[in-house]
């Protein structure tokens, strides 16, 4: 049993979970939802075991580091975080109708990690700059933020789809409907995910700054990754201020979540593969 095998399993389990969530949305049979949730939980376990095994394998190779140091490892962790945060939302809001718009992101992240040839999947020793306890703190906090923003984006798509079918946002959120959450509930979850993500992104940027200062003597150098994380931070700060002071909820909040997510993707992926800078450890 090795970590790559578990990553492969995880990809297919998330795919299967996605199918069940889609089937639930179409056929509206409660039991399909149970399968979907069960599969997502199994996926989270397999994903976690995969990460754990890779950690052990790195020690067996005499390198020994927490597997969060390159594009492949971060994608696997990203998928894991999305699935865990999603399960928490499903548990808190007692609805399975959101899975269709969230679990596919976990699947896509895993599939990209498993099948892409753009980056190496080997366990490679850490460059001297990465050998720091800040690595784990920085990557984990950033990716919790990214996962929350991804979920906000998924739910924003759902919101816009529902809005497109003519549903109207009611100010007072009622009990969950059979057809899944109301627009008001979706709006509230999207807002909460953005707040949650914003907080973790802030911690991520701060841990990154403190780390940079302890390794290079400069907490901010306008390197493209740093700059893009700040751009993302500005975009969500803008969305939150617009909501607080200009009443940007509902459709406009959903669009903000989409724009924010584009910025997240560029911060995460675009910077590594399109721009170049201090952070190009991904390749």
């Amino acid at each position: 049993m090795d970590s790559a095998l578990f990553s492969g399993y995880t990809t297919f389990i998330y795919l299967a979970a996605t199918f069940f969530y889609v089937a639930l949305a179409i056929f509206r049979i409660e039991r399909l939802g149970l399968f979907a949730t069960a599969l997502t939980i199994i996926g989270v376990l397999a994903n976690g075991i995969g990460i754990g095994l890779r950690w052990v394998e790195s020690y067996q190779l005499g390198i020994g580091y927490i597997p969060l140091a390159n594009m492949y490892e971060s994608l696997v962790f990203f998928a894991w975080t999305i699935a865990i945060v999603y399960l928490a939302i499903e548990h808190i809001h007692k609805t399975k109708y959101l899975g269709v718009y969230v679990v596919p992101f976990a699947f896509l992240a895993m599939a990209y990690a498993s099948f892409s040839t753009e980056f190496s999947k080997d366990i490679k020793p850490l460059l001297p700059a990465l050998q720091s306890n800040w690595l784990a703190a920085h990557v984990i906090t950033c990716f919790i933020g990214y996962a929350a923003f991804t979920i906000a984006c998924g739910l924003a798509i759902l919101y816009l789809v529902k809005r497109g079918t003519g549903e109207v946002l009611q100010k007072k959120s009622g009990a969950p409907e059979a057809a899944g959450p109301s627009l008001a509930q979706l709006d509230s979850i999207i807002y909460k995910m953005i707040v949650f993500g914003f907080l973790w992104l802030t911690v991520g940027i701060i841990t990154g700054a403190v780390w940079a200062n302890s390794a290079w003597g400069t907490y901010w150098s306008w390197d493209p990754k740093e700059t893009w994380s700040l751009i993302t931070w500005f975009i969500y700060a803008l969305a939150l201020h617009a909501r607080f002071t200009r009443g940007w909820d509902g459709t406009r909040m959903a669009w903000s979540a989409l724009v924010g997510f584009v910025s997240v993707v560029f911060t995460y992926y675009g910077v590594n593969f399109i721009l170049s800078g201090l952070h190009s450890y991904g390749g």
Partner: protein
Amino acid sequence: MKFKENPIVDYFSSVRFALLLLPLLVVGSIVGTIIPQDQPIGVYLEKYGQTNAIILEILGLSKTYSSLWFKALLVLLCLNLVACSLHRIPQVLKVIKKDNLNTDIAKLMRSEDKVLFSSNTDMKSAETAVYEILRQKNWLVRSRDNADVLLFFAEKGAWSRLGPYLVHISILIIILGALVGSYFGFKAFVMVPEGGATTEVYQRNDAQTKIPLPFTLRCDVFDIEYYANGMPKEYRSDLVALENEKEVANKRITVNAPLTYSGLTFYQSSYQPIQNQYTVEMTKKTVTKGNNQASGSKQKVYVEAREKHAWQDNLVRFEIVETGEDGHGHGPYKIWFDDELGVPAHLVLEDQKPLIIERGGASYEIMIKQRFATGLQVVKDPGVWLVYLGFGLMLLGLYVAFFMSHRRLWISIQEKGATLTIILTGSSNKNQDGFSKTLEDIATGLLNEKTLKLRRL
């Protein structure tokens, strides 16, 4: 402050202005990540053509983040933050300090979240019971008797309304810290050869301004450790700070572990092999006949290849005759060696691997490696503590702003004949759904209090 009186000042101190500044900062920042920064003009000429390159230079896009317009945007954002805060904080303080016991009962009755009770108990015991229940649930309780109505007011988290302003202030503190760092500190660079020392460093600007150090910095050893696959594992330098030739600080620095002394921090930043120079460490052990005791002497020298070197009054002589290239650019070495005990010899040494030479009455251990200069980033940043303080306040402020709420409760007790009418109502500035549960919890608490003899209406 009376911002209201001037519409222009009013706009610049509004959140609406911030909602304009933030997108501008976003666009400016994006431009700076797309156009390569801090390159010589030639790069832009080649990449964008002459006209575009000139426009870029004029707009400051080759140094976006230090350009006048970008700084101006940041200054405006700071001023806006200050103005917004000065404008809003007094209003928020007014809400925090508001006399909530001066609330009209009719207004309370209009609240959506309310619970009505009736009771047969007397006013005095009702008052005590309600007070106790709220106190037990950690509410800050006040009450006022308004002739026919006894009104309780209880609240939690009033100060949490200041959370957003704490975040704004933290941004100002971070920027202040950055300014202190850039005006009173510097970022500099120096290469120190192994075995060498320096008393000055060079600022990272075009002029590379010399900055004298208040002490001498010596590098004893620079070393690179490699993984089995040839990737570098660790760069390290043994640094010593000297004042009046006395050692005052020393540390083996690595990339993530710098040396700080007297306000300056030295970071392992780069390295350079010094062309044609090698570090030779040689130990000589002499065995004295009779008592079988070894006496040794050791020395470390920096030598050039193809030059003879002498040791111990010219008794021991050696020369690096030839240097090879291994994976990392040096070794194996061919050396010529001679001493008073035998005939001259030619030997081969691997890089950094000690070789033992037996010469009758003595044995030598020789080790050769490339001589390096360590590249140190030298930073003086007296503003960094402000930046870190700002980070801490920002996290605290965000937590307070998003996860704490100002919850207010009113309970009125009204005497109507032999029965008491009790109204429980309240509001929260955030998370109204969560607050409804809190209200329900208090209603249950009141119902469970036997002395109150409540009936829910």
